[in-house]
Every structure is written in structure tokens, then in C-alpha cells.
């Protein structure tokens, strides 16, 4: 950028095309990167701080515990990233996850279907909820907040009704628990592996495919996108369905992790996941966001929570500290944006 300022701008360089891609092109690309590295810096600061504060923090057992505890919120956050980039929101992911877990339980425990069928069934349950959300939002034109709030209540109720208001235990289902707690890669719980694989998948979807392009386009200006010949209604349904599928996976993972489907779980998870997405630099106004950011955001949250526990900070103080750290983390980012703008 400085280079450009130093050189007097001549006709040739200014009038676009002929000019070789100037350095500035790197800028908007780097922008997301920088944003992420800022979030990343927060993460590193937290890790260093806690390592000094408690000798028990930086042990493999604890780190893998942190990763494991990131898995569920992280998977939810990945799916929601798509929705938030379109300028929407999904409040149904928490209880939707629970309903997916309960359905997995029904399939595997009550109906005794084969493992793979039950797992796919659970994931598709999430996809179905996402589809209904998308339909309500794109076709019936309900505001995303209210459509997914309603779905949150419905999923919560259905999870209780379907499970008969009691946990469904997977203890009889051979191998199910391993979905979360086994280790295909020695030392790394499978849930974490799933998180990383899904993050990669989400990254590819978001940055390499048509779906991703339209996700950003809809979030930037939905009407302009529609007038450009994009069937925005169809794509919004697809996007919410994708988010729903991630919710479904989260349901299976939490079921495996707890070795049970807990029908009353789930409320509050949506806010945590959304917070992770936003801390990672995705804008609720739509049109801007990244998967890597979301991953870092989710890690910040779980490192923070774990660190405070390891330090034996009193429970009632933990929320205060988390709130303040979130403020600081996001403020740093806002500061950078302001500097950029001036």
C-alpha cells in the first residue's frame, strides 16, 4: 500500500485492466487473514496466560479435553457461520442438536437399526429441521430470528415428547460411543477429528463452491443477487439445510460423548455457538465471515472456560471474566477496523 502511495498514480496504472494486479489486491484478501490472526492472537494470549497461571493447564490431557469440549459448540458454529453470512440467524441449533441426538437414540436403541443407519438418520433429522427453517424463511418469508426461535421451542418440545422425557442410553449400542471418544488418530478423540474434518469441509464449501459464493452474495445484497438471476429462495433453503446437517452431526457427537441422548439439553448452546462465530469475525450484518475465524472463536471460548476452571476461579466469577474477555477480544478487532477505515 505504501508502495502505491509513493508512486505517482498515472493513467495507465489507474485505469484498471491493463495494469498488473497491484499489491492492493492482496489487501482485501489479507484483511480476513489479519482479522483471524487478531482473533488468533487473543487465543495465543489466553493460552500463554493460563499456562503460567496453572501448571495443570498445558498438559496433553487438558488440551485434548479442551479440544473435546470445543467439538460440539464448534460443529454447531460451523453450520451457523453459513447462516450468519447470509445475514440470517439460527437459534434452533441448540435444541435441534438435542432432537437429533434423541432421534439417533430412537433409531439405534428403540428401533435397533444398524449403527450407520441410525447415525445418518440423526444427521438427516438435523437436515430436515434446517430445511423447514429454510422453507419458513425463504418461502413463507418469516424473519429468521422468529422462524428459528419457533423451531427452537418445537425441537425442544419434540425432544422431550419423543424421548418420553427421559434420557436414552446408548450403552447397548456397540461402537456408538467411539464416534466421539474413540481415537482413529491415537491420542486425539474422534469428536475432535470430526470437528476438524467438518471445518475443512465447511471451508471448501464456503470458499470454493457456488454455494459459498451465493452465501456471501445473499448476505451482501439479497435483492441484487436475486435480480442477477440467482434463485435466492432455493439457495437460502439449501444453506439452512446445510446448517441443519451440521446440527445433526453435533447431535450425534454429543450423544456419543454423553453415551446418551439428554432430551433437556441444548438451550444456551445456540448463543455460545453464535458468540464463537462472531468472535471469529463473521458479521451479523451478513456478507463477511470465515470458517477459520469460527474455529478460532470456538477455541477462544473453550480455552477461556477451561482455563478459569483449572485456575479454580469461583463459578460465579467465571461469567464475569468471560464477558470481559469477549469484550476485549472483539474490541481489539473493532479497533483494527477503525484504523483501517481512517
Amino acid at each position, binding site marked *: *500500500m505504501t508502495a*502505491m*502511495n509513493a508512486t*505517482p*498514480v*498515472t*493513467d495507465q496504472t*489507474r*485505469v*484498471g*485492466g*491493463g*495494469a498488473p*494486479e*497491484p*499489491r*492492493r*489486491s492482496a*489487501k*482485501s*484478501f489479507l484483511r480476513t487473514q489479519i482479522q483471524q490472526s487478531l482473533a488468533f492472537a487473543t487465543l495465543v494470549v489466553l493460552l500463554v496466560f493460563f499456562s503460567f497461571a496453572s501448571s495443570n493447564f498445558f498438559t496433553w490431557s487438558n488440551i485434548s479435553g479442551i479440544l473435546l469440549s470445543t467439538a460440539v459448540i464448534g460443529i454447531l458454529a460451523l453450520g451457523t457461520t453459513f447462516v450468519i453470512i447470509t445475514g440470517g440467524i439460527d437459534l434452533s441449533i441448540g435444541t435441534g442438536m438435542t432432537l437429533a441426538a434423541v432421534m439417533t437414540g430412537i433409531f439405534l436403541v428403540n428401533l435397533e437399526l444398524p449403527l450407520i443407519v441410525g447415525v445418518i438418520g440423526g444427521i438427516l433429522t438435523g437436515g430436515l429441521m434446517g430445511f423447514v427453517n429454510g422453507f419458513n424463511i425463504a418461502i413463507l418469508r418469516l424473519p429468521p430470528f422468529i422462524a428459528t426461535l419457533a423451531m427452537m421451542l418445537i425441537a425442544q418440545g419434540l425432544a422431550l415428547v419423543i424421548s418420553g422425557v427421559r434420557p436414552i442410553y446408548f450403552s447397548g449400542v456397540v461402537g456408538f460411543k467411539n464416534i466421539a471418544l474413540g481415537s482413529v488418530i491415537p491420542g486425539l478423540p474422534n469428536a475432535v477429528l470430526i470437528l476438524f474434518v467438518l471445518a475443512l469441509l465447511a471451508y471448501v464449501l464456503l470458499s*470454493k*463452491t*457456488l*454455494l*459459498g*459464493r*451465493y452465501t*456471501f*452474495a445473499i448476505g*451482501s*445484497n439479497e*435483492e*441484487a*443477487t*436475486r*435480480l*442477477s*438471476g*440467482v*434463485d435466492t*429462495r*432455493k439457495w437460502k433453503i439449501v444453506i439452512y439445510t446445510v446448517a441443519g446437517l451440521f446440527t445433526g452431526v453435533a447431535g450425534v457427537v454429543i450423544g456419543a460423548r454423553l453415551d446418551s441422548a439428554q432430551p433437556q439439553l441444548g438451550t444456551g448452546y445456540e448463543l455460545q455457538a453464535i458468540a464463537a462465530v462472531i468472535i471469529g469475525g463473521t458479521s451479523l450484518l451478513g*456478507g*463477511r465471515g470465515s470458517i477459520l475465524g469460527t474455529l478460532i472463536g470456538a477455541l477462544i471460548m473453550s480455552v477461556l472456560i477451561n482455563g478459569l476452571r483449572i485456575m479454580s476461579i469461583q463459578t460465579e466469577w467465571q461469567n464475569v471474566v468471560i464477558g470481559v474477555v469477549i469484550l476485549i477480544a472483539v474490541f481489539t478487532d473493532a479497533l483494527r477496523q477503525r484504523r483501517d477505515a481512517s
Partner: protein
Amino acid sequence: MSNQLLRVTGISKSFPGVQALKDVQFELDRGEVLALVGENGAGKSSLMKILSGIYTKDEGSIFLDGVEVNIDSPKTAQALGVSIIHQEMNLMAHLTIAQNIFIGREPRDGLFLRERALNRKADELLKRLGINLDPKALVETLTVAKQQMVEIAKALSFDAKVLIMDEPTSALTDVETETLFTLIEALKRSGTGIIYISHRMDELRRITDRVTVLRDGEYIGTLQKEQLDIPTIIEMMVGRHIEEGARPKAREHSSDEVVLKVEGLNTRQLLKDISFELKRGEILGFAGMMGAGRTEVARAIIGADLSEGGRVHINGKQVKIRQPSDAVSHGIGYLSEDRKAYGLLLEQDVNTNVLLASLRDYTDALGFVHTMKGKQKSREYVASLRIKTPSISATTKNLSGGNQQKVVIAKWLARDCDILIFDEPTRGIDVGAKEEIYKLLNDLVAAGKSIIMISSELPEVLRLSHRIVVMANGRITGILDNEDADQAKIMDYATRMGDEREL
């Protein structure tokens, strides 16, 4: 007291990657209209934004009434008597016209707003300005042109010493433009200094006293009224000579093959029995007053709005178009008149915008988008349309108004539709670029495409169209061959209110 009102010297301003202004100067006298001209991206709007406190200058001085002033916020500018009509609409859509005009200056009774007084004040103002709008109407219900009139009314309500107008007429038809010019004359008489930015060269001679030319952010020179000569100005602007093309002859390119046939199209609000044909290789102009329904026709055809009981045939086959994506898959593209609201992804980069309508061409069977080819294409358009941008990955919001408009045009060129509906395609585009776009449109029809061009600039309609559809009040009142058409005739049809229709 000297007659000089405003003097600006040595102004420089740079944005990351762009030197928008470099040592620019100009002077403005009381009761004078100074035109500021230059190509798209020359720095006109940036300079005005500095004067109105939106941008801060890097260097330079501003003297108002001979005193150096520091304009650091819109509020300061207002207090100093500098008022601006923005190039891009800057209204609060959910508020009424009156509320918009007097935002920040509401009449009050202690804590309480005096809404009736507000409406009365606005009504008086609008009446005084000869603008026929209901002060209680919500701005979101207005067309672009009417919104522009509201912007004008708002700026005039300040009784400013210096009034800046950044392309006030780009969305207006001739009639509203006349209204505006009458206002400008009155303001001049009362001693207001006016800075007037426009790409419509014929306006310059009508109302301006002096013209200052910018090119690439640099001051080129100032011409006095007596020196005013359009070709000279254009040459100063673009640094080369531009030939004006000739009017087309009616069936010069067009064949008799009908590619688009519209029959009996109605909308609940406005359109009545719209029927016309578009032929292969033809530019079909649409003329009419503001609000005649031209935009509405286009939106109804492409399914952006619901229509009732009309039939649309493409290449002889009746088609059902329910939404814009259907239209595009049938080969119809629509360029909206409102680039900011309906045309652009402002926060995304130029490349994304150019490729938005044609992304599928770069997508493989698995849904992966291959960016290299697409980027190459974007670069080509940036070059051929002379879009002034640091790169194709610059944020579109940061482009000048005219260059944003070119990006929208590029989007539709990239889509390669057989039928293109261009709604005010040259809005905010400089003279040189306009000629290039005209040439481009001619090339397109020569290559067998067909174009509907909606424009409020009659000369432009006359220059380009093979045939001209004239609308009034939601109906088609006449379809003229180019040879038979002139401004007077079009105006005649455009002001017919009844059901008369001639073909």
C-alpha cells in the same frame, strides 16, 4: 466585501492504493454556478465530500469568505453554510419526506416534536421549490427520481451559502431537470454559490458560469463562461478527442425475427395492457416521464414483481417467468436503475460483482467455482470498460459512482444474455465512457443480441434506438420508428394521459 465566496487550494487526499486528489484548487463566487467536471473517478465526489466534512483532507486549505476554515464533520459544514446533495441517495427509507428533510432540525416544543409544524414547513418548502410531493409520504415508497427530488429539497432547506450538487440530474427526466434549473437561477440571484457536478454536457452551457476540470485527481484548468465549448471541455477531461456517433437507421441491424413478445401485461398498481415486440438485433428504446411505468414493465417481464394476465413469448414460445432466475435462464438480463439498492454487492470486490450473474459458467459439475478463468474475464471487462479501480479485488463501495455503474454493466455483459433490459444504463457515466458504451451496445446488437433500453435522456434514446416505445401513466402511448422520432414528438406522446395510442 469581495465577491469571492470560497477558495480551495492545494487539496490532496489519498485512500489506500489510490491518490484520489492531488493539489487541487478552485474558486467560487457569490451568485455563481461553478461546474466541476471530469471523468468517472476523477475525484469530484471526493473533493465535495471533503468540503462537506465527510472526508478529511490530507493537505490543503479551504477559505470561506476569505477565512481559513477547518471542516471536520458534516455538522461543521452545515454550521458554516455548506450544504450538499449527495451523488448516492442518503435518505432514511422508513421516515417521511418531511422527517427526512428536517432531520436534526426538528421543530420542537421543549421535549416534544411539533409534527404538524414540521409537515407545514416541509409542505411550504416543497411548494416553494415547485416539487409536487406529499410531505407525509414515506421515502421508501418513492421512486429513485422522487428520492432525488427529496435530496434536493433537503439540501435547499438549509439556505446555504455554498450549495454542492453532485450529479443531481442523473436520475431525473428533462421536466424535473427544468424545475431544478429554475431553482438554481433563483438561488443565484440570492447570492448562493453553487458547485454543480454533472456528466450531461448540454446542461453546462445552460446554467454554469465557469467550468473547472479535474482529471485523475489533478486540477486541469478552468474555463470562463465565454470560453465554454463542449469539445474543449471533453478534451480537457479525457485528454483526447471524442467523436460523436451517428443515429441509427431503423432496421439497420434489426431483422424481422421477433425474439421477445409481450402481450397484455398488467400490474395491479400501474401497468395497463402492455404489448410490444422486440426484434433480433434491435435496440428498443423506452421513453417517458418519471413514473410512467418503464421500470415497472421491465420488472414485470423478468418476474421481479408480480404481474397479472400477461403473456411473454421468447423466440415464439410462450414462457412462464415467475422470478428473475427464470428470466435469466430464458436469456433475459435486467440491469436495474438503482445500482446501490438493486445492482451491487457494495461490500464485495469488483470481481465478485462482475461474475455474480455468470458464476455458473465457472462452476464445474461438483459445484466448485474455478476462479482463475473468472478473474481473467473480470480483468478484461475492467480494461475494456475502463473501470477505474486499483484492482479487481478492490471493494466496490470504494469505487466512484460512475465506475460502480460500469461494474453493473460488466456483470450483464459477462452473462451474455440474448435479451438485455438496460434501465438507465448510463446513469452517472462520463461522456467519454458513454460513447464507448453506446458503441458497445451497437456491437451487441450487431452480434445478434437484442436490447431494451430505458432512458430518461431523450438524446440518448434518439441516438441509439431503432424504435422507441413511449409510455405515459402505465400505458404505451406510442411506438415510433427512429426516423419519425424527435424530442417534441416523444414529449407529445409522453404527456398523453388518456387511452390514446398510436402505432
